[in-house]
């Protein structure tokens, strides 16, 4: 999942007494593990929070194709190019499922697209970092999709039915993405000195931004409690970050690559790795729009949307003509 810093549209978790009857029944259904479906009653805050979260996730899929598109035309073999194209195709497909799932909450795809384009909605901070060498494509699959999977697997159990079902489909494809990424960076790590340098350089640049994908530390994450009560969010940011580090460090060791963290070490007592936090000041800068690629990414999306206006208009005009002709013929 690529949703960070989702501001829950509520002032905090309501106590049982503060809830209306409808809210109490709604919470009881969630507590019982039932799925909420589009036509069911739901609190407006639940709806608004989900639109933000699913929208941000969908936008991340779409913007995420840009750093990969940066290398599609320079992929080093036909097979790597084909794999990357398949991955990009999946991601556009994920964006489509998620926009469709968000539409069941009463917001159109065009409306939330406009919110991305004018900066009202965000996408994951990770896509504001550049893809500079070929091994970055491996690192994106291995680390970025790996971090996304950490979040998405529990979200298959999320309370909103359409989101949960979209996540089941997406998770299947994401694990292929992670494997292909790991395989691409492995080929570099096992390759010539220049290729090894690419792999290490990619890990150096993507390590901390990947840790940021889980969002700020729990101590600073003020919006989580209500989302967790609603089962829109399943695990805390720190839980997932720790799980990611524990899973990823042995993979880096296997590749012979060095995780850029002097404080990284296995802790026998906790049975987990101790590790350094990313620079949260940098994270908030990126979220505010000051990352290395924020301006270019949004400009690319805006240009694609504006340049494509005549195509969308032309297709709609033709569809209307066809529909009118069909009615006339009947």
């Amino acid at each position, binding site marked *: 999942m690529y949703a960070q810093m989702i501001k829950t549209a509520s002032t905090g978790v309501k106590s049982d007494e503060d809830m209306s009857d409808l809210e109490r029944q709604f919470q009881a259904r969630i507590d019982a593990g039932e799925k909420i479906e589009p036509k069911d009653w739901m609190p407006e805050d639940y709806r608004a929070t989900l639109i933000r979260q699913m929208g941000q996730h969908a936008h991340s899929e779409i913007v995420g194709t*840009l750093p990969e598109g940066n290398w599609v*035309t320079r992929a080093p073999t036909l097979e790597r190019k084909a794999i990357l194209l398949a991955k990009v195709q999946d991601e556009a497909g994920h964006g489509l499922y998620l926009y469709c799932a968000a539409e069941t909450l009463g917001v159109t795809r065009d409306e939330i697209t406009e919110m991305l384009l004018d900066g009202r909605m965000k996408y994951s901070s990770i896509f504001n970092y550049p893809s500079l060498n070929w091994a970055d494509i491996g690192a994106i699959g291995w680390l970025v999709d790996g971090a996304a999977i950490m979040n998405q697997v529990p979200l298959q159990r999320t309370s909103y039915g359409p989101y949960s079902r979209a996540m089941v489909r997406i998770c299947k494809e994401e694990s292929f993405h992670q494997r292909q990424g790991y395989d691409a960076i492995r080929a570099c790590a096992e*390759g010539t000195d220049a290729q090894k340098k690419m792999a290490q350089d990619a890990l150096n640049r993507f390590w901390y931004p990947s840790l940021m994908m889980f969002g700020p530390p729990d101590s600073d994450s003020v919006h989580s409690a209500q989302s967790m009560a609603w089962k829109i969010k399943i695990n805390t940011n720190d839980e997932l970050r720790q799980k990611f580090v524990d899973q990823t460090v042995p993979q880096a060791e296997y590749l012979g690559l060095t995780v850029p963290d002097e404080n990284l070490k296995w802790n026998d007592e906790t049975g987990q790795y101790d590790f350094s936090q990313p620079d949260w000041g940098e994270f908030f800068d990126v979220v505010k729009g000051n990352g290395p690629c924020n301006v270019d990414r949004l400009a690319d999306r805006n240009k694609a949307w504006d340049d*494509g206006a005549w195509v969308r208009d*032309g297709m709609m005009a033709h*569809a209307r*003509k066809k529909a009118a002709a069909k009615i006339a013929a009947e």
Partner: protein
Amino acid sequence: MTQQEALFQFLLRMGDNTLILGHRTSEWCGVAPVLEEDIALANTALDFIGQTQFWLGYAGEVEGKGQDADRLAFHRDAWDFRNLLLCEMPIGDFGQTIMRQFLFDAWHSIYIARLLKSSDPRVSEIAEKASKEVAYHLERSAETVVALGDGTEESHSRMQKALDYLYPYVGEMFLADDVDAAMVSAGIAPDPTALRDEYDALVQKVLDEATLTVPGNRFAQKGGKNGAMHTEHLGHLLCSMQWLQRVYPDGNW
């Protein structure tokens, strides 16, 4: 020219068409006009790259000098490429991209259908695998050309402009040379000159529906399929496509 050399050239032509057009299509990654088109364009590019692996893989075997599909794709210079000029033209706006796709798909579908009956079993097997993809490409590009030709005033005029720009590159598909003659006599591939009427009828039907006018001038730009003279665009395409392999030739990717 020996039969083996002719077969090699024929296979390069097939594989270079799909390689170069697949590359062009992949340039749309992330910036298509609508999400469904992002998916469709990535899918089309993926099909072409898959077909390239078969055609160039077989070409390398026929040549017998130890070159595999990747070696042929990433280590030849422009003068050794045998794709139609149409395939290397820039993507332009979406109208130019989809019009080129349609003009190519129409030819590709007719040509591949003949290759199903090729006397060379490897050729017919590759054609068999490609034919379903090619049929789908044609269905989609024809539908899109019709929708945009018969859409708004602006989409109509952009599609007509794209057709006028690309039409001089259609004629090359139907030119025949020694390679084609050798393929015809061995029963491996059809005579390109014999396919024009079928092509014209198909294209005319779709363009009529799209309310577009087929240019009257049949002058043909040529030099791609025999490598005599490519456009200036091909060299730039190779600069990005081959860069990593050329800078790090010892790499195993």
